[in-house]
């Protein structure tokens, strides 16, 4: 870094031209418009980012009868699917997803999993290598509604059903599938759905999803979206109505997507009256108390019960079932309707779950509704499963379990609240604003993580959010950019899923909101995106285009840098030069010039030495050695100087004369974009009187492709120091080059050592205080 700290006395004020920019070497065009990358707008999807006049989406309605076998941990089901073809195309076959097939031994996931022999590990892990789990769907048949077999072909995690005749545009087709499968033990096999067994008491807790053959999406972007499921890219599903009869042991409590329509047959009068009470309560009310759940845990079922759920306009169905469940509920009003917020949890979740879960559910749908669209489903449910977080429409499965003795760390507490906000938040992305998860994980995870951050900050002041603020992504982004993949990478190919699909897009949106657009413009545009695409299937371009279209701000450089590129933000202050304009007043200027000359002359090391060592010079000793030049003062103001000054003053307008009197300071800053991801330049000037002023310069300062720019700032006050990105809002990865004068920042190691030497290690203090 080169610093120049010098005073240049400029000649004539009107000649100072404030040209902010100077052009330097040409670099890649980071401000090139995105049209050549984005898909061509169509009548289905417009150039403004909205659904077009020909937009369509197909629908799938399901009627299902399910039996949960708690003895053998098997789920059996029979479904009738009615598929509505709203596309302009005739379909000769239908594609369904068989997600359970990922647990087949010869699944692509298993075959393509790369593995290594590692160091010595635990016996459990060794045993896992020999674990036999007979997973995957066992399909019994696929028939039409008259009972005639339909030809079907299983292609790994997908199934094609051939239609007897083409399904024309506007038509529908009903067919039936019968299947069963062995439910996976989530502790051993993993999985988004599965069971947890409580060995001491012999009870099971089922959190069930992806348990039935589900229709794929057919649309204008992918045709049939039947990209194989490899485990990472989640689910792309059409909307439809579900009616589900769920037969479980009669001592089980069930929570599911949708509304329980036969509560009068299933619930006791006491439970029904508590449920009614909960519908009017703004605090959780117990429907099944911990005492009742404890009693059920110790009992045995006498038979089965069939719970019937109805869910409209949803893209999936999931449920949870166990005799261990405690169940509480409360009401949350959103817009003009009531939402019943509920939690189902075993006693192992307490005391955390009864205190927080349902309240967090209510907070989440309220806050998300404010930033996106009103939550329009009748219920929102959080179910406690051991250590997972997974979302389905109206219901999600969340971890966050206290220690067996009921104590818990703050990490467990905030982890639990965060995961509930996150998973309930998924009701908005992708359950309602239904992006293609198989293709673009970031479209639901990134957007959801962003709103999760907003909701966390409204839950508790200074909530310890893991993602959101710009500076939290720096550790990840400051790494070698050659090995980073852009956000716009397919779900199944993303390395560093957590950073790339969750953290980085969430941070990018937060930066867009706080720094690039400002909260008002951003919130309007983001809400418009949600409104346009609620209950529809948006694509990345629809988001990019809507955010620009509604905000009126060209954001192509931002999408290009943050979503299509792998560069990082690193802006540096290279050089600062200080100028003051000349007043032209000979009385002032000549005095300054004289002082400068004398200063320079008298500063020399020889002067004080000579003053003491040379008692008398020749001229001092002999006045006869003086002439005109010994008396001449080149800095004396002459009548000619005065005349010139009078003429200059007469040429100035009164405004210019006033400005000149103020004694401006000009600072020429040289800035470099070292990271390659252009961002706004935020500068905080601290003046010699201690006051501060912030200048915010839009990212367009980099629009000519320069890696280095210079810009002039003028102040009446004199600048003491300058800080770049003082509010940590741009994710600048290197702060060492963000200060003038340069600041040497101690390393973390040094800080730790210093603190320890002073004996005020915060951790130790904390321990002593407890």
């Amino acid at each position: 870094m080169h610093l120049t700290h010098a005073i240049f006395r400029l000649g004539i004020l009107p000649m100072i031209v404030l040209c902010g920019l100077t052009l330097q070497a040409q670099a890649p065009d980071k401000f090139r418009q995105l049209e050549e990358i984005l898909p061509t707008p169509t009548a289905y999807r417009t150039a403004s980012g909205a659904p077009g006049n020909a937009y369509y989406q197909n629908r799938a309605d399901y009627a299902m009868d399910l039996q949960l076998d708690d003895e053998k941990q098997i789920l059996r089901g029979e479904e009738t699917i009615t598929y509505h073809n709203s596309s302009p195309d005739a379909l000769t076959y239908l594609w369904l997803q068989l997600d359970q097939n990922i647990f087949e031994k010869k699944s692509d996931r298993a075959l393509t999993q790369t593995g290594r022999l590692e160091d010595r590990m635990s016996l459990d892990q060794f045993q896992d290598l020999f674990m036999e789990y007979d997973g995957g769907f066992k399909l019994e048949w696929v028939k039409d509604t008259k009972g005639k077999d339909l030809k079907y072909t299983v292609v790994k995690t997908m199934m094609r059903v051939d239609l007897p005749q083409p399904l024309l545009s506007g038509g529908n087709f009903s067919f039936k599938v019968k299947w069963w499968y062995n439910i996976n033990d989530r502790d051993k096999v993993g999985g988004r759905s599965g069971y947890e067994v409580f060995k001491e008491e012999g009870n099971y807790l089922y959190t069930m999803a992806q348990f039935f053959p589900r229709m794929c999406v057919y649309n204008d972007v992918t045709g049939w979206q039947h990209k194989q499921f490899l485990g990472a890219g989640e689910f792309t599903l059409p909307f439809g109505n579900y009616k589900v009869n769920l037969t479980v042991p009669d001592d089980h409590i069930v929570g599911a997507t949708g509304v329980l329509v036969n509560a009068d047959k299933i619930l006791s009068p006491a439970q029904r009256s508590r449920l009614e009470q909960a519908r009017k309560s703004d605090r959780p009310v117990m429907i099944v108390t911990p005492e009742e759940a404890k009693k059920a845990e110790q009992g045995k079922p006498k038979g089965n019960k069939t719970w019937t759920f109805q869910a409209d306009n949803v893209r999936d169905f999931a449920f949870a079932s166990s005799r261990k469940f405690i169940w509480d509920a409360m009401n949350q009003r959103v817009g003009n309707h009531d939402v019943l917020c509920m939690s189902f949890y075993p006693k192992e979740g307490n005391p955390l779950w009864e205190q927080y879960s349902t309240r967090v559910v209510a907070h989440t749908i309220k806050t998300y509704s404010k930033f996106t669209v009103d939550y329009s489903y009748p219920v929102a449910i959080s179910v406690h499963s051991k250590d997972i977080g997974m979302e389905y429409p109206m219901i999600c499965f969340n971890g966050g379990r206290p220690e067996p003795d009921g104590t818990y760390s703050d990490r467990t507490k905030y982890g639990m609240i965060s995961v509930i906000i996150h998973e309930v938040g998924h009701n908005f992305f992708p359950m309602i604003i239904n992006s293609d998860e198989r293709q673009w994980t970031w479209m639901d995870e990134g957007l959801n993580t962003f709103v999760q951050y907003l909701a966390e900050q409204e839950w508790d002041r200074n909530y310890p959010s893991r993602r959101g603020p710009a500076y939290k992504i720096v550790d990840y982004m400051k790494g070698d950019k050659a090995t980073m993949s852009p956000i716009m990478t397919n779900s199944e190919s993303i390395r560093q899923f957590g950073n790339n699909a969750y953290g980085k897009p969430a941070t990018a949106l937060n930066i867009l909101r706080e720094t690039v657009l400002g909260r008002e413009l951003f919130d309007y545009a983001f809400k418009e995106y949600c409104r346009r695409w609620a209950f529809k299937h948006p694509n990345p371009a629809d988001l990019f285009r809507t955010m620009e279209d509604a905000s009126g701000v060209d954001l192509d450089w931002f999408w290009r840098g943050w979503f299509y590129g792998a560069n990082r933000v690193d802006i540096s202050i290279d050089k600062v030069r200080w100028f003051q304009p000349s007043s032209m007043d000979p009385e002032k200027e000549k005095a300054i010039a004289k002082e400068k000359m004398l200063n320079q002359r008298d500063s020399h090391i020889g002067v004080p030495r000579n003053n003491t060592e040379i008692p008398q010079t020749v001229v001092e000793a002999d006045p006869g050695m003086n002439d005109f030049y010994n008396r001449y003062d080149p800095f004396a103001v002459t009548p000619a100087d005065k005349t010139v000054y009078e003429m200059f003053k007469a040429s100035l307008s009164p405004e210019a004369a006033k400005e000149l009197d103020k004694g401006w300071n000009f600072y020429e800053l040289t800035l470099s974009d070292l990271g390659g991801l252009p961002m706004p330049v935020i500068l905080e000037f601290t003046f010699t009187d201690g006051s501060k002023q912030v200048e915010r310069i839009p990212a367009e300062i980099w629009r000519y492709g320069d890696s280095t720019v210079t810009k002039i700032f003028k102040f009446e006050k004199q600048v003491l120091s300058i800080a770049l990105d003082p509010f940590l809002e741009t994710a600048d990865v290197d702060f060492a080059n963000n200060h003038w004068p340069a600041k040497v920042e101690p390393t973390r190691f040094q800080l730790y050592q210093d603190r320890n030497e002073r004996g005020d290690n915060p951790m130790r203090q904390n321990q002593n205080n407890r």
Partner: protein
Amino acid sequence: MVRFGLLIGFWMLAWPLQAGDSMHDFHVCIMEIDHRPSENKLEISVKIFTDDLENTLEALGAPRLNIGGGKIEHPSTDSLIGLYLQHRIGLEQGTKRLPLTLVGKEVELDATWCYLTSDLNLDAKNLKIENRVLFERFEDQLNILYFRSPNGKQSFRMVASSPSIMVDF
């Protein structure tokens, strides 16, 4: 062919469970190394997500540590972390493996910063750095290294398939 030795220790396939976690964690460990030629030593700061560190140590047979939990933190926490890091972080000059000393640790939100030092061999011209922290836990674990010396800054990424790098002095 590698022969399994159950009595020696259990070899395992690093085959993590299906990614079933929709609130996907960061599988990143940050290691900062400052080379101080004047003192002939390395100052090392390692940032590991606390839950990952705790779960990994537990899987290796450690008790519940409650890292950063004040009075409920297990008294052996520091020595177990030190032991783990000595096995997972390797500094080599020529054929000599440099000893690592855990100076201390501190908890910052959901991460634990561990501080270590190591004395350098004066004559060696380069240093091999290996960081295999949490590789046994996550297949996509990424360990980022920032190496700073009077000659400047360098950054490296270590993944399971290439867990070590070489820096020249």
